[in-house]
């Protein structure tokens, strides 16, 4: 059983890691993970609702 990891996945916006488990030339399992988190949900909590668009458009 072999495992392949592609990190970073390029030509996309954001940070992505892919892991693939291979057995006998066939994909057995695969995982995708976003490898960056800023907590935008926590940042907009309790803020003036009128400025939330400005913050969340910067995701």
């Amino acid at each position, binding site marked *: 059983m072999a495992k392949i990891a592609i990190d970073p996945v390029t030509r996309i*916006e954001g940070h992505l*890691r892919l892991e693939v488990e291979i057995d006998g030339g066939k994909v057995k399992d695969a995982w995708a993970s976003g490898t960056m988190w800023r907590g935008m949900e926590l940042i907009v909590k309790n803020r003036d609702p009128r400025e939330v668009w400005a913050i969340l458009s910067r995701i």
Partner: protein
Amino acid sequence: MKEESLFESLLRRGVSRRDFMKFCTSMAATLALPTAFSAQIAEALEKKQKPYVVWLELSDCAGDSEAILRASRPTIGQLVLDVISLEYHETIMAPSGHSAEKSLQDVVKNHKGKYIAIVEGAIPLKDGGIYCTVGGRTALEIAKEVCGNAMATLAVGSCASFGGVAAAKPNPTQCVGVKEALPSATVVNLPGCPVNPENVTATVVHFLTFGALPALDKNHRPLFAYGKRIHDNCERRPHFDAGQFVKKWGDEGHRLGWCLYEVGCKGPQAYMNCPTIRYNEGTSWPVMAGHPCFACAMPQSWDALGPIYSRLPNVPGASYQATADKVGVAVVGAAAAGVAAHAIIRASTSKGKQEDK
């Protein structure tokens, strides 16, 4: 084999000599240099070889990359940035995974001390920096290696400069700018949300022409771009001085292009060259489009100056408040004093952190 100069590669891409000279003159203007310097700029760009550049994306949204890549037609400035041998940029490079990381390692190893690192995005410090990893390494580890071995680092955008939106309260991942994370690195901060590509190009051109980084302020921002207050260069300033203010979105004043101070404009506290160079190849900028400036280029702008649609208190010259706004002054006054005190505290803390010379 001799590598081609910037000018040679521009010629190869169909840029005429005349356009090239126009570009050099506009760069001299952006850099606030007398036009005589355009000849010196031209001479440098004709002779200098393309510098190697790596572009790191850390805790970012790729907005600064977008600002540079998404022009409607390729400008010379864009071509200069393009022909600077961009060896690594996650969003646009062909290789992925190990081979992508190898491109980065090659530059760091083979051009140590000679390449320019451009960083987009903040560096999260919380929990050992696990909130941003690329190729299994944290943003901090990568920045330490790449910026530590670079000739200079350009922190593009407010996140790389001061933490930006990622560092807005409560700053869940303890994001900081590059200079704060790596105090010993040579960093030029080019804040703005997004950065203005003209300022990136001008900084690179200054470096190529004079062999040195432009003069910086205490926040490591080039004075040519961040030395003047938006309020002082704003095309709506005469309306401020005349006491003509937008009171409500879409009211008559708004339609007539009056001052946006009362609906929250932070121009009186913001230092950047937006009114003179504008965005998208000189097309427009927020205030011109009818939206208040929210001081995106200032440290901790999301918290230090209050919500973006609330009026900035105590702006000198806004004396009309005592008359036109008599009703409610007492109520607003108390809140405003609180906001002002908060702003001063924030400003002094960030100043303390930034001054590490």
